[in-house]
């Protein structure tokens, strides 16, 4: 497989400084090879160590078999040769929406991003296909030394910082898809919050896949220095096509002593997108990492946000919801490793399945032998809306220290006719009644989201309940 002539020309141009190609489009031919990986790196004019890492990761990806768990039959359907691994739709990352190509700007307008930015965000990055098309951060944060860039700019402007932490939490060899991401990554966010700085309002990243058979492989690295805090929010959507797209991200969080990172996701990919993501953070002494993870869309999601509690007194929370409708499988969960003493963790997982959808909770919590006095709390609730749908729980707990206090609760429930009748007697249609029950079920999650996102999620679920009553 070779990249398209057009792409090769631009790569050629790049060496000569392709500054004039502001409106150009680069689309690599479908399929993956070592040459494609080299071309991506070359196009980005990356340092040699990154190119080398990409190549090593690519080789590992090729050698590594598909996971033998999760939804193997769906995984088998992924045709890696049909996917486009790099596509650029605009010339540069702009910091003024007026300079973003009109069609793309309209898309983000419709998604409400510029509006949200005005009202309640500290910074925004908007990624379209493989590259960030828009990026901005509030001036006062820049003055305090906060770095918030797309990952490519991060590598260009802060190569030492990136080199130090890149792949330090999620090695490329972690799994097949972390290897793929490391080989072909493009875009994502790079964030560094200096010591003691609190970023009060959230920063947001929005990921949009627009093209058919697209592969989006953003890479995010967040470093919160001692005593700092940040809340990162991400959203994502894609158009619906009859052919599949692949989204495979890697997110690495480093919470240095006493810092606090909250990472919130509302994933709403269209039902033709495979969403195979590796998210992991390391919490140092007395640091906190929270994953607030909502999975509403996609065809198959396999995602288990993880926290390594490395420092004494550190804390982890994973609060997640998953909605599986027709043809969807949400295989989601959490992993937490208690490596140090007096560490605490909380997992709350809520899943709803409907119209033959399948929801799985897959969780792993470990406590190492030398970690004293750890506390773990795990709650998994599933709500099944009809007979066709399915919910499974795969919890694993490995506790090697007897001082650990573990609590685990799981429940599976169904919506009863009496519940619906009660709500309908208060003037709500059957669909509205179902939406009230479903949104209530998700409430412990939505209350953790910024208000604007919570409202959006509730509206989204109400939409999913429409036409659901036979």
């Amino acid at each position, binding site marked *: 497989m070779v990249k398209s002539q057009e792409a090769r020309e631009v790569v050629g141009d790049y060496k000569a400084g392709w500054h004039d190609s502001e409106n150009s489009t680069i689309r690599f031919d479908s399929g993956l090879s070592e040459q494609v990986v080299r071309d991506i790196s070359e196009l980005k004019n990356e340092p040699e160590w990154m190119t080398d890492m990409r190549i090593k990761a690519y080789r590992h990806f090729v050698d590594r078999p598909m996971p033998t768990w999760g939804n193997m039959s769906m995984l088998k359907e992924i045709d890696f040769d049909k996917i486009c691994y790099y596509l650029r739709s605009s010339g540069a990352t702009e910091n003024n929406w007026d300079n973003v190509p009109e069609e793309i700007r309209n898309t983000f307008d419709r998604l409400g991003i510029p509006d949200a930015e005005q009202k309640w965000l500290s910074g925004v990055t908007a990624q379209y296909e493989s590259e960030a098309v828009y990026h901005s951060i509030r001036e006062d944060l820049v003055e305090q030394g906060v770095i918030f860039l797309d990952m490519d700019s991060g590598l260009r402007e802060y190569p030492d910082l990136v080199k130090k932490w890149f792949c330090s939490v999620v090695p490329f060899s972690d799994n097949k898809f972390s290897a793929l991401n490391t080989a072909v990554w493009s875009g994502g966010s790079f964030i560094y919050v200096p010591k003691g700085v609190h970023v009060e309002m959230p920063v947001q990243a929005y990921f949009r896949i627009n093209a058919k058979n697209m592969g989006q492989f953003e890479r995010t690295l967040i470093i919160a220095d001692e005593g700092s805090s940040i809340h990162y929010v991400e959203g994502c959507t894609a158009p619906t096509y009859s052919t599949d797209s692949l989204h495979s991200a890697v997110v690495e969080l480093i919470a240095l002593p006493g810092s606090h990172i909250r990472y919130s996701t509302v994933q709403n990919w269209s039902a033709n997108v495979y969403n195979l993501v590796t998210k992991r953070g390391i919490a140092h002494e007395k640091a906190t990492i929270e994953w607030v993870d909502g999975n509403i869309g996609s065809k198959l999601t396999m995602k288990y946000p993880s926290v390594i509690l490395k420092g004494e007194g550190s804390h982890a929370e994973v609060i997640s919801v998953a909605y599986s409708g027709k043809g969807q499988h949400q295989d989601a969960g959490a992993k937490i490793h208690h490596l140090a003493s007096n560490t605490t963790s909380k997992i709350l997982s809520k899943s709803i399945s409907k119209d033959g959808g399948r929801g799985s909770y897959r969780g792993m919590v470990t406590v190492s032998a030398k970690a004293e006095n750890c506390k773990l709390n795990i709650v998994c609730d599933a709500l099944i809306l009809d007979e066709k749908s399915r919910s499974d729980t795969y919890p694993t707990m490995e506790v090697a220290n007897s001082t650990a206090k573990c609590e685990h609760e799981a429940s599976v429930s169904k919506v009863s006719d*009496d519940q619906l009748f*009660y709500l309908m*007697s208060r003037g709500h249609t059957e669909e*509205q009644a179902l939406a*009230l029950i479903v*949104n*209530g*079920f998700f409430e412990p999650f939505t209350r953790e989201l910024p208000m604007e996102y919570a409202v959006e999620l509730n509206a989204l679920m109400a939409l999913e309940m429409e036409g659901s009553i036979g």
Partner: protein
Amino acid sequence: MESEEPLLKIVNLHAGIEDTKILKGINIEIGAGEIHAIMGRNGSGKTTTANIIMGHPDFDIEKGAVSLNGVDLLELETWERAKMGVFLSFQYPQAVPGLQVGNFLKKSVASIRGEDAAKGANFRGILKSSMKELNMPSSFLSRYVNDGFSGGEKKRFEILQMMLLQPKLAILDETDSGLDIDGIKTVATGINSAIRGTSSGALIITHYSRILDHVKPDKIHVLIDGKIVATGDASLATDLEEHGYDWLEEKVAAEGEK
């Protein structure tokens, strides 16, 4: 303009669940401003009557008619009946975890009385005064609907909904059970102020005469085995209290033999 038709009219209602007949010919007419009571033992068909008026899907109507101001209720969905002004205070209110009381009340008022009724100082004013009348703290609004409520809290919450939704016809299914005497007085005050002197009506379903001492129904219907065997004024409740249902059953049997 109110129609000439009575508020609620039930004519020769026969109904059951699967193969079991429960109601065997019920006739009730409630006029505007009237409060009626249905008394009877467990299993006599009281709750079935309430559920059928509200439109519970489990029941099959064999024959008969139920109308509100002349409009055939049996043709309408439950939520349409609610919008027409039918309200049921449930014997066993359902819990909806995660749905906050305040949010639910606002949504229900908006759905039944319109968006404007659920907005602004007016809504908050009625909400506050109603909750005060029912001795409910404002923290109640952030709890989840019927989730972990005590029996008394559930019943008070049903009455709170009634006060906010301002129904034309309020059916109260054993709202008095699980309440202490002060609770019953509070609920009775709520019912009286919502119905007396208005164009609304109420149907109180109960085992006991306690609540009727405070509400003073215009008519009492006694239901035995799916049939109304006696209809009378408030004194019927006193008779039942003194002699029990056996007395009435024997009387009915004796009449049947004639």
